């Protein structure tokens, strides 16, 4: 299978999944979307294995690494700034703002912890001695 054919089938499967989810949302059915998404993902994985061409190589992974790092930077700084601002504003005032501020602040801490664990894992895997 060529890459173009794969992309076409990927689009069709994606459209079917989207349509099923949309119908499920309208009808209030919460069960149907889950197996649909799982089956759709399995179909896409099976189709991808049939593609002979190289779809992703080291350049794609390098781009993904840089994009991931930038995302962590932007999201981390934004969440910390917004969370801190909300906590400062809500001091003695709105409890809703304080809850959102705490949530964002803890989410930032969680993000940094996950980043640290992932960094330590790959550092050890790739021979570092930090």
């Amino acid at each position, binding site marked *: 299978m060529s890459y173009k054919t794969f992309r076409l089938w990927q689009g069709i499967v994606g459209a079917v999944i989207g349509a099923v989810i949309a119908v499920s949302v309208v009808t209030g059915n919460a069960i149907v979307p889950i197996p649909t998404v799982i089956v759709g993902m399995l179909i896409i994985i099976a189709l991808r294995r049939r593609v002979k061409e190289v779809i992703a190589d080291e*350049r794609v992974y390098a781009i993904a690494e840089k994009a991931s790092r930038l995302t962590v930077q932007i999201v981390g700084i934004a969440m910390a700034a917004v969370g801190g601002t909300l906590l400062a504003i809500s001091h003695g005032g709105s409890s809703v703002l304080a809850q959102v501020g705490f949530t964002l602040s803890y989410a930032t801490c969680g993000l940094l912890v996950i980043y640290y664990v992932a960094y330590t894992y790959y550092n050890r895997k790739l021979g570092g001695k930090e």
Partner: protein
Amino acid sequence: MLCIDYLLATGEWIEMPRIKNNIRRLRFDHGEMIQEELANRASCTRQTIIALEQGKYVPSIELAFRIARAFGVALEKVFQYEE
């Protein structure tokens, strides 16, 4: 906390590479080999070959060897480091 230092570091990843290559010339020297054929021989994508020819991407040593092998020449014939 080296990981945080790296996370906060900026700028170094957009520098232009100092490694030049002769991929385009070598392709034409090998019977006007198309980019797709070279990509198949080197097990990479055509977009990577395009990026290499434009000097926007520096390959890993493994890919560099695969490209040199695809042309049947030594690594130094394909890639040069600019002082």
